[in-house]
C-alpha cells in the first residue's frame, strides 16, 4: 500500500480535496444509474399486477352475475 496512515490517504498531499469528491460523485451517479431502472421495472410490475387482479375480480363477478 502506498499510503502509511489513514490521514495520508485522506489528504493525498493536498490533492485529497480533489480526488475524493471526484470518486464520491462518480459513485453516487453509478448507484443512481443502477437503481433507476430497477425501480422503474418494479413499479411497473406492481401496477400491472394490480391491474391483472382487478381484471380477474371483474371476470369472476361477471360470471357470478350471469348465473
Amino acid at each position, binding site marked *: *500500500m502506498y499510503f502509511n496512515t489513514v490521514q495520508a490517504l485522506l489528504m493525498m*498531499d493536498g490533492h485529497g480535496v*480533489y480526488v475524493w469528491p471526484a470518486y464520491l460523485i462518480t459513485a453516487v451517479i453509478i448507484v443512481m444509474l443502477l437503481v433507476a431502472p430497477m425501480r422503474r421495472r418494479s413499479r411497473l410490475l406492481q401496477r400491472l399486477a*394490480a391491474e391483472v387482479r382487478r381484471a380477474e375480480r371483474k371476470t369472476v363477478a361477471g360470471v357470478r352475475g350471469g348465473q
Partner: protein
Amino acid sequence: MWTFFHKLGSPPWLYAIAGAILRWLVPITLIALISGTVWGLLFTSPDFRQGNSYRIIYIHVPAAVVALAGYYVMAIAGAISLIWRMKMADVVMKAAAPVGAALTFIALLTGAIWGKPTWGTWWVWDARITSMLILLFLYLGVVALYESFDNKEAAGKACAVLSLVGMVNIPIVYKSVDWWYSLHQPASIKFTGESTIDSSMLYPLLLMIAAFYALFTCCLLMNMRAELLQRESRTQWVKRIADEKGRG
C-alpha cells in the same frame, strides 16, 4: 443463424436472456469497479509530475472511453431501426442514451476537478472539452427528443436521425488533441507503439476501463428490460410476469 436474428426481435426472449446475463454481470461489474478503485487509490504510486491528483484518471478515462463507445451503440441501433424498422433496435437506442449522458457527465466533471490542481482552472473552452460537452448535449438531446413526441414511432425516427448526425462529433473528440493546440494531454494508451504510461498504472486503468464497459452493458440491459415491459404491457407474457411478481 437466422433463428438467432429472429429471436433477437422477440421481446420475451430478449427480456429473459437480458435477465440471465444480468444475474452474473452485475456482481462481476461491482467487484471489478471496487477492486479497480482500491487498486488505483491505494496501491499505485503518485505520478512524478502531477502527484496524487492523477488518481482521478481511473474514473475519468474509463468514463470518457465508454461514453464514446456508447455513442456508437446508440447511433448504430438508431441506424438499424431506421433502415430495417427493427423495434428492438429502437429499444436499445433509447436505453443507451441516459447511460451515455451520465458517463459523459462523469468524464466532464472529473476532468474539471482534475484540471484545477493540474492546469489551475476548472474549465477551458478547449477542443477536447468542448467536443465532449457537445457529446453530452447530443445524448441529452436524444433523451429529450424522445420524450417530446407522443407518437413513439416518430420519436424513434427523429432520435435515430439526431444520433446519426451527431456521429460527426465522434472523430472530432478523438482527434481534437492532435488537431488543435490543447491543454488536454494526448492519449497515453496506444494500440500501436509503446504506451506512455507505466505498467503499474496501466493495469488498474485497464481493469477500470473493462469495469466501465461492463457497467454500461448492465445499465443498457436493465433499461432495455424496463422499456420492454412498458412497451409490451398489454401482452400476455408481461401480464404473466406481473402476476407472478404480485403473488410471489
